[in-house]
């Protein structure tokens, strides 16, 4: 959560981010809401009326969901269910795997080989750039166009500022270590 909130933005977008971080708090809250009985109608044990006094996390969740509803009504986003296609760009970005992953160093990703030149495999794993890996010695023939492979990412874009340059020089490639083919479990 801290990593999400740390997404540094241009100063004028600061207010927008503050609202996003509030929403992220609440999103995480919803994921953990197992014990809140008064909200769910299917629960037969507790009475329909909210007589049972909520405490601790349940009370906080009640309070924040009320606040979230007020905010939604104020912002005019009521009626937008999570399954609908009406997500804003900010929501799509926040929920995207790229942002949820955090730093790319040492993260394992699945990529697909889209081009092969002799022993170089060009693998696309969903980032801006593809990565180029050497064909491994073990099971070399199994790496063909369209094969899915596991990668350990190092960097999403290889850039560096050289002496005397105004901007970074970019290699237009990502950097990753090939771990092996994607092992599909036999059913």
């Amino acid at each position, binding site marked *: 959560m801290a990593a999400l909130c740390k997404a540094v933005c241009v100063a004028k977008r600061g207010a927008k981010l503050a609202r996003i971080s509030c929403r992220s708090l609440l999103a995480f809250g919803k994921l953990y809401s197992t014990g809140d009985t008064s909200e769910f109608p299917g629960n037969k044990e507790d009475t329909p009326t909210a007589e049972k006094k909520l405490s601790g996390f349940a009370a906080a969740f009640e309070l924040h969901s009320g606040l979230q509803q007020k905010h939604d009504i104020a912002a005019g986003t009521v009626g937008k269910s999570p399954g609908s296609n009406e997500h804003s760009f900010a929501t799509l*970005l926040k929920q995207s795997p790229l942002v949820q992953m955090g730093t790319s160093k040492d993260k394992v990703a699945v990529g697909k080989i889209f081009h092969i030149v002799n022993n170089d495999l060009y693998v696309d794993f969903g980032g801006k750039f593809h990565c180029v890996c050497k064909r491994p010695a073990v099971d070399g023939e199994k790496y063909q166009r369209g094969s899915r492979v596991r990668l350990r990412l190092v960097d999403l874009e290889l850039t560096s500022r050289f002496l005397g340059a105004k901007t970074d020089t970019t290699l237009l490639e990502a950097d990753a270590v090939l771990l092996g083919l994607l092992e599909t479990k036999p059913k």
Partner: protein
Amino acid sequence: MAVGLLKKALPRLGLAVPAWPGVRCMTSRLYGTAAAQTQIHQPDNSVGSDKILTEPLKHPDFFRLSELFSLKDLFDARVHLGHKIGCRHRLMEQYLFGCRLEQDILDLDQTMEHLQQALNFTAHVAYRRGIILFVSRNRQFTHLIESMARDCGEYAHCRYWQGGLLTNANVQYGKGVRLPDLIVFLSTLNNVFQQHVAVRDAAKMNIPTVGIVDSNCNPSLLTYPVPGNDDSGPAVELYCKLFRMTINRAKDKRRQMEILYGLKSQND
């Protein structure tokens, strides 16, 4: 013709063609003053042909291009991903949503608006039988762009650009050469990360340009810049698909309108 109509409405505008990207309206993009382009197609003075040309200008989205793409499509095609913060061009800061772990993220809300305007302009140019030239120096997508241009009946130049192609056309190709009426850049940089020569030359020759600008590009000389990713495969495939559909739609619409107004003028 439309030029006569527009000159009647805005008498002083016919001569001044401002090159600032801020001015977006169709009326200021007049081809009448571009010396290198010759109007081969002589319009007849019947009411029908006048209607064909003026009717599309009355609607903000005559070709209904907003239904061709959505924010989700752009997002899934990775259009919002930019370069690292060190590669950022100062003039692209207005189009950025922010920077996440040193990678710039482009604002897709702004991209949607710019893309809509760019596609609308492309459609109008294709409707009026303009020549559209696709330019990109990204070798990964050369084949894709060339086949897309062939599919929509327009032109592509994804190879080495000779210095005087536009500015010295009369000498290199003979007199009376018709230059493109619109140049679309699917990547505005050449292979050494300098701006493609055609951007500057098109501005010199009064040719409007549409360009996909990434976070390391300079958007200032383009008429219709579209902030977006120009390096990922899915993104460029999406742009190619959109341009091809736009141009085909515009040409089909033109054929329909000609039949419609051609029949009307016969019946009158």
